């Protein structure tokens, strides 16, 4: 029974990280209909900057703040400089631009900080079965999800962002600066991506530290349905716990295969993900 509890708790802690990355992918998808493959690389650079600040100042939380700030800034720059020019074209162009950015940023991280492992601290004490660090991860993701829900549902900025994403022309006619909303979407999403990076990086940071999280983050976003933030969080937790059971009872080498199996099962039942209202496609 203990083993089962360990697997579940470990699954939830990992699931929170997949949820955070899934969340950032959903926000960007909702805003610009683009799956941002560069998100893990943006998060990686943010985490490396946080690590440099942590080494210089000795305070983890200063580094944490730098990660979120630099994540936001990089998201804004990526949208404004790279995604905006290919905005009108086929979705493939945007996907390939994000792929190029992924390769370039991961290589750049290797260039500046080398390809070795750095010891990277947990946010809080990592000891104990359900450690404060694990709790912080889950708590942070929960808070972020609620903040996002409130932003989208109750604030003028949220309404503008949704209108800009759903019907750009009507939004413009109502005085919404659509371009600015897309940039804001990328900024917020990259901040959450940086949070996911700070949760996923410990214990060792290297240019490839976020590779595994990258695949599971996309799987979480797709599982939950790319339309709702709650979907990504639910998808992330479901995936985290599911993979933990598989690696616990069947062997860790099967986790990637299990992710495939979970995805196929869910998508065959709900082709648009768990939490998406089946939208009738306009004929």
């Amino acid at each position, binding site marked *: 029974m203990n083993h089962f509890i360990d697997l579940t708790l470990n699954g939830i802690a990992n699931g929170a990280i997949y949820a955070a990355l899934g969340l950032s992918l959903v926000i960007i*998808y909702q805003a610009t209909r683009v*799956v941002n*493959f560069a998100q893990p690389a943006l998060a990686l650079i943010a985490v490396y900057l946080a690590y440099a600040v942590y080494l210089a100042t000795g305070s983890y939380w200063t580094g944490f703040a730098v990660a979120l700030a630099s994540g936001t800034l990089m998201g804004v720059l990526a949208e404004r400089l*790279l995604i905006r*020019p*290919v905005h009108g*074209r086929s*979705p*493939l*162009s945007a*996907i*390939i*631009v994000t*792929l*190029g*950015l*992924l*390769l*370039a*940023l*991961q*290589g*750049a991280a*290797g*260039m*500046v900080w*080398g*390809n070795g492992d750095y010891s990277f601290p947990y946010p809080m004490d990592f000891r104990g079965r359900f450690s404060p660090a694990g709790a912080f991860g889950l708590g942070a993701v929960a808070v972020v999800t609620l903040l996002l829900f409130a932003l989208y549902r109750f604030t003028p900025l949220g309404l503008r962002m949704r209108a800009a994403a759903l019907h750009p022309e009507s939004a413009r006619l109502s005085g919404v600066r659509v371009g600015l909303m897309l940039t804001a979407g990328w900024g917020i999403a990259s901040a959450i991506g940086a949070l996911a990076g700070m949760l996923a990086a410990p214990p060792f940071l290297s*240019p490839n530290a976020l*590779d595994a999280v990258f*695949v599971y983050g*996309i*799987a979480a*976003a*797709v599982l939950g349905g*790319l339309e709702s933030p709650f979907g990504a969080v639910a998808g992330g937790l479901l995936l985290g716990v599911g993979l933990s059971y598989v690696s616990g009872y069947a*062997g860790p*080498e*099967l*986790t*990637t*295969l*299990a*992710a*495939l*199996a979970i*995805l*196929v099962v869910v*998508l*065959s039942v709900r*082709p*648009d*993900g768990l939490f998406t209202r089946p939208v009738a*496609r*306009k*004929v």
Partner: protein
Amino acid sequence: MASSLRRKQAPAAATARASARRGPAGLWNSLPVLPRHLLAALAALALVAVLTSVTDGLTALRVANVGYYLLAVAGLQLLVGFSGQISLGNGAFMFIGAYTTALMVLYTPMAPLAVVMLAAVAAGCLAGMLVGAATARLHGPYLAGATLALAVGLPAVALRFPDLLGGSNGLFFSLRGAPPALSGLVSDSQWKALVVWFVVLLALVVLATTSRGRLGRRMRAIRDDEAAAATAGIPVGRTKVVAFVISAGCGSLAGACQAYLLGTATPSSFTLALSLSLLAALVLGGLGSLWGALWGALALVYLELAGEELAHAMGLGSNVANNAPVVFFGVILIVIVMAWPLGVQGALSRLGRSLRGR
């Protein structure tokens, strides 16, 4: 104003006169589809033969690499370019082809190469059918996400059955080199390059012929507007699965060529990066034509090498030099997609048109 009127008046006569006046190009277009493709394939094979005979084994290996990447990208091109289904899973089909070849060579060494290759294609098509059926109702990012999971998940099968599939060390085997009759004339690596290109070109002929025919038109209809295609009576589901089957067959054959060429099938060769770079090569080269697939394949093999040369030339520090090729590939990818929306082929044909137009 006058010239357009004249053209309208005598359409039949004009085309006859025009094709004669345009000489070989006219002749070329008037050939039926299949012989034209076969001729092109033979010309390409001759070119490869000449190229590999004047250069050393290393270039022959790289030329062969370009060959099987071309096939994999062309398969993806059919899926993405024609039927609009964005799949990130072609690396998985290469995995299937490579392992089918490895297992057959190890367990049925007497089977001739052609049979091994056909078995690989069959395995790939079967997998393509399964994946196509499972993902028929998915579209856009959901399809991309599912195929991404396939590309990452499938190689784990080799880890699960270490004794049969060799675990993380994979399978390795030695293959027949050049037949004794030609041993003087042709080196082993050159022979393998020729065999790879022979298989690739044959597959491309099949690919080009089908995409010209009815199936190609159906797939393009689906790409443009799935709902409209359905109302026009095109069996959307079935066509999508057929597109997947052909694309998977090409990917699997490419994997088989890789295994044949390198004498190995190892899980760590079929990473997520492989599937992503196949898609990148496709867009880099230019959607919509086999030439685009060629430029993409060349980029896959030679861009990182160029990055390495650049890093060596600038005598950079070790960290920078080690990572330079990857950064170089990423930057080139972004620049080309932004500068030339239709990829290298799009830019070349525009250049061609503007030259001819003047």
